[in-house]
């Protein structure tokens, strides 16, 4: 029995809509006006015509082209690696028998709750030893696989790959690697897409660690370049928000394509199952 919406449901939803979209809309408005009209003049409510000029200015003020490329390299590498390595480990935990499986899985689950951010000081030291300070490798390497990903793909393998299928492939003489590649990977594609989206977003949005380990001028990611753009004594907001719009656009476009899948997948975030 679904109850009919109450009288306040409509206005409440409208409020949610406006609150969700307004800050994004406002950033476009500010980005497309010159500084004077947004800081002293009348309050503009519609986008102006300066956006293209500001985009050009952003690319002049910081090496935004390199930053976009760096962020793309980091996010794509980390995403591909997470999906492959998590599915590999998830498959082993879900369908292969080996000694110590329970204890090792316990370690995975336990480490989901460990805030990795807190190990930054030795991690910084480690990157110095490896000679990776200021290098994208320093951002990519710690993100190559995550405990969450392994746990997520283990659940996916248990749901989407019937044990009989694995056994049948085994009887046909398939090695574990072949089973993983030909049976498991195709079967868990929907869950893998969701993991890929979540990983990509997290990698694209990461700020703290890249800020610590990358040079803000030489080799930043988009987020570090943005904060550099906003630093200094005087903040040119139209310029800064143009940068923010530029840094947001790729993820919003990416999100718009499979939003339905991402939402369906979010509803399966392993809570206690």
């Amino acid at each position: 029995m679904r109850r009919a919406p109450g009288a306040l449901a409509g206005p409440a939803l409208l409020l949610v809509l406006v609150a969700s979209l307004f800050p994004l809309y406002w950033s476009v408005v500010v980005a497309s006006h010159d500084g004077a009209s947004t800081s002293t003049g009348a309050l503009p409510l519609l986008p102006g015509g300066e956006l293209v000029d500001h985009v050009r200015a952003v690319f002049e003020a910081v090496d935004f082209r390199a930053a976009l490329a760096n962020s793309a390299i980091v996010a794509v590498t980390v995403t591909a690696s997470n999906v492959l390595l998590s599915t590999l480990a998830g498959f082993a935990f879900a369908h292969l028998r080996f000694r110590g499986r329970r204890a090792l899985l316990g370690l995975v689950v336990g480490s989901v709750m460990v805030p990795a951010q807190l190990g930054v000081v030795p991690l910084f030291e480690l990157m110095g030893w490896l000679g990776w300070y200021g290098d994208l490798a320093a951002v990519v390497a710690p993100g190559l696989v995550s405990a969450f990903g392994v746990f997520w793909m283990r659940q996916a393998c248990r749901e989407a790959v019937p044990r009989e299928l694995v056994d049948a492939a085994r009887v046909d003489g398939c090695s574990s690697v072949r089973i993983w590649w030909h049976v498991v990977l195709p079967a868990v594609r929907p869950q893998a897409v969701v993991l890929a989206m979540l990983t990509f977003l997290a990698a694209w949005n990461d700020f703290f660690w890249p800020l610590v380990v990358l040079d803000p001028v030489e080799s930043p990611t988009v987020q570090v370049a943005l904060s550099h753009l906003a630093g200094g004594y005087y903040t040119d907001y139209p310029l800064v928000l143009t940068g923010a719009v530029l840094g947001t656009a790729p993820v919003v476009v990416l999100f718009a394509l499979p939003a339905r899948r991402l939402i369906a997948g979010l509803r399966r975030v392993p809570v206690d199952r």
Partner: protein
Amino acid sequence: MRTQVSFARRGREAAPYLFIAPFFVLFATFGLYPLLRTAWLSLHRWDLLAGPVEFTGLANYARLFADPFFYNALANTASIFLVGAVPQLVAALGIAALLDRPLRGRTAWQAVVLLPNVVPVVAVALVFTQLFMRDHGLVARILSALGAGPLDWQAHAWSAHLGVAIMVLWRWTGYHALLYLAAMQSVPRELHEAAALDGASRARSFRSVTLPGIRPTLLFTAVVSTIGGVQLFTEPRLFGGTSTGGNDRQFQTLVMYLHERGFEQLDAGYAATISWVLFALCALVALGNTALVRRLVGRW
């Protein structure tokens, strides 16, 4: 022939370990090792660039527990968390209840609600900082149109905390709402029908059927938002532009203090000490949350 068979079998026995090896090697290198080394570093006077200066035992901890800046950052973190998290989870429950009704364009609504979570935190912080500008920010102009004077958001602890909490709230409410919605839809409809037959009002049914039904999810979101709250950095850091969080450190959070000590003053041993205390705090708060949600929801 026999050697081939045993080779194949050995391959099959080794395969699972090879499959999980990449995770454990990477986790050991970039997760576990730094965590353990943090403990070792915290027992030293240690320069970030020069390395160990001197073994000092628990001196860093003694210093930390007598450090007013540490308590200030702790109080700010707690304050921002409380101001942000409670309304956030309540609003998320409300939005989930709204979406858990017959609704045209359901997926579109869910996409809109999730959108803020997709936007990079840095962009969120910059947009809201612009909205909260002292004299000419949109919020200031609306306030002055309503007859209130302009407010220097960053100058006062309460307004700076509120500003940062609003950024967190905006970014995370929709995400939690979708988690709640998913949980609500898995509560058996018959329970609601039975409650209605017993004469329960809609509010009563929500309290007595829905909330207990989604308890695991409530717990999960409480833990997730707490751990996020303890680690809060990007929003307040960009709000003020420095790691000190305002002239009087009025909105410096614990991770900002960690960043200031470790990566600006290069006092790595002391930063490691802050890390360990933060880690203990995360564990403690997660446990506390579990107990709290169990008590609150279990009683109803």
